[in-house]
């Protein structure tokens, strides 16, 4: 019985970080959009080689940090000023007691920022995602060891099973393989 298998994309392996960077530049210049490189470590300059801008992960962290500061302000001032307006340590209970609350402001800002960083990282990288079609390619395991790969997805408007294969081979890619979904 012939089994129908959907195609995810085509993968190619490269010898070194330098080769991969040059190949990625060419893929970018060919105006491919749905593609990625898989490497054991972040390669310096790869974002530019892939035509990707700076990560905007800092935006959610700024928002998270601001929420942290606000939480600390409410947590300290609302009880001190409104619920239990008492003089403790000879310090006032209104806005003038602000310096005594700085450590709490600081700690909660850092705490909320750190959680925002990690959650934003997970959301933006779509993790956890325990199944992904690239894992169907056995060689991709080397991407966490010492392999350098380019994978072009079939969703890409420029994708063609034969031409993309030839293109990747022309860039110096080895083990060019069709990856099943």
């Amino acid at each position, binding site marked *: 019985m012939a089994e129908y298998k959907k195609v995810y994309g085509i993968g190619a392996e490269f010898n070194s970080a330098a080769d991969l960077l040059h190949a990625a530049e060419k893929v970018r210049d060919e105006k491919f959009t749905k593609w990625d490189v898989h490497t*054991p470590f972040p390669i310096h300059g790869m974002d530019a080689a892939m035509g*990707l801008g700076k990560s905007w992960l800092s935006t959610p962290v700024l928002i998270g940090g601001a929420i942290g500061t606000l939480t600390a302000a409410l947590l300290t001032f609302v009880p001190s000023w409104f619920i239990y307006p008492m003089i403790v340590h000879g310090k006032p209970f209104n806005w003038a007691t602000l310096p005594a*609350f700085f450590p*709490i402001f600081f700690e909660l800002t*850092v705490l909320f920022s750190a959680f925002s960083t990690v959650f934003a990282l997970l959301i933006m990288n779509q993790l956890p995602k325990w199944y992904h079609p690239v894992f169907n390619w056995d060689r991709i395991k080397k991407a966490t060891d010492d392999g350098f790969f380019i994978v072009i997805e079939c969703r890409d408007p420029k994708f063609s099973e034969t031409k993309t294969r030839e293109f990747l081979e022309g860039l110096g890619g080895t083990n060019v393989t069709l990856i099943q979904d």
Partner: protein
Amino acid sequence: MSENSQAAPAVQLKTPPELARVPLVTNNRSLGWITDKVSTIVEERTGRWWWIAFLICSPIALMGLCCVIYQISNGVGVWGENKTVGWAWDITNFVFWIGIGHAGTLISAILFLTRQKWRTSINRAAEAMTLFAVVCAGIFPAIHVGRFWMAWFLAPIPNSYGIWPNFRSPLLWDVFAVSTYFTVSVLFWYTGLVPDLATLRDRARGPIARFIYGVFALGWRGSNRQWRHYEMAYLLLAGLSTPLVLSVHSVVSFDFATSILPGWHTTIFPPYFVAGAIFGGFAMVLTIMLPARLLYTQIDDLITRQHVDKMAKIILLTGTIVGYAYLMELFIAWYGANPYEKFTFFNARLGLEGKGWYAWSYYVMMFCNVISPQLFWIKSMRTNYVAVFIVCMFVNVGMWFERFVIIVTSLAQDFLPSSWRHYSPSTTEILTFVGTFGIFLTLFLLFMRFLPMIAMSEVKIVTPQADPHHHPETSPEAAANH
């Protein structure tokens, strides 16, 4: 960028050999070699020495936990504290352990921001050490509150008693600082672990290991669209941890500095405590890394003499800062003309006129923290593992005594001679402290056994072949200079 590197430079710069940078990974190892050597530590059969170490450390940890249970069920009366000396070994141990944690965060965050590439092979283990040290530290204030089951009052939780924490108190700042520090350290450590857990997942031979590492690797695939955000997240976490680590020991020092007790009431405390924490922490990093390096000879090319040399230099620097703080305290005690402060420093601590009950501990502290690290001015001593280990043991002892000196000598002999009290620790107190070493080492042994103790993906970045402008035909020396 690539165009520039390929164009011939106008002036050929020649680096004299004595100025060439020593490569961080020696013997020009390949990327696969790094993966193999670090992963096999986790994958190979558990060594006999590991079982021996584990069977020694885990009963000690258990003994510590029994002491904690005994203390909780009987009350703080089982300790040697009295009406004058209300803080003693408990808070000494707390400050000691929390300080040790600081070296891990310094290596992982501050050295990252300052682009110290040599940090990559030691940051994972140092960060793990941070977490385990903070676990040990957290035990003491929790049980020191006396009624342990009431410890939740420290958290701002609305309750029917109408009790609300006092946010103006340094003790509450401490609760927030230490718990934030632990949480952020866990997040930072785990973020760093994800790519390496993916490596272990991809190498795993058995289905159980593949499943467990796979779950915790979150499906990491090392794609550049992931690395892009990952690098930013790492940078942000490093940026957040840097002021955090400086704040934690500053806040710990506020516990003392905001009181009016002579010997505690000084403005020098926050920087002095932070320097001391980094000092003691690096000593503890070396105390556990040197034996680990001896047992796993395959990582010799990753943690080299260069790394030990650099850590020894940090110990020398911070030790000297601590020495300056000690002398400055003495100077201010003399110059400030406050009779109580003068008494604390010159009589209680230095033991002049024979009045220092605990003066011996001051001299132990001075010798261990200020004199012994001066050996590191000599390069051959910084790269001699035995000498480094011995000095680090002295520093470990000295940093514990520093906190003992600050806490106990100040409390035991304060303003009124009629309220002076001697203090000596009870057996339970001593065994609890010994037990925390068992907890610390047991956790570290488990970490070495089940997690990659060197950050593989980060070490790979600092190898010459990771540089996209590296060309293998050039000589390794030229690549190292690159």
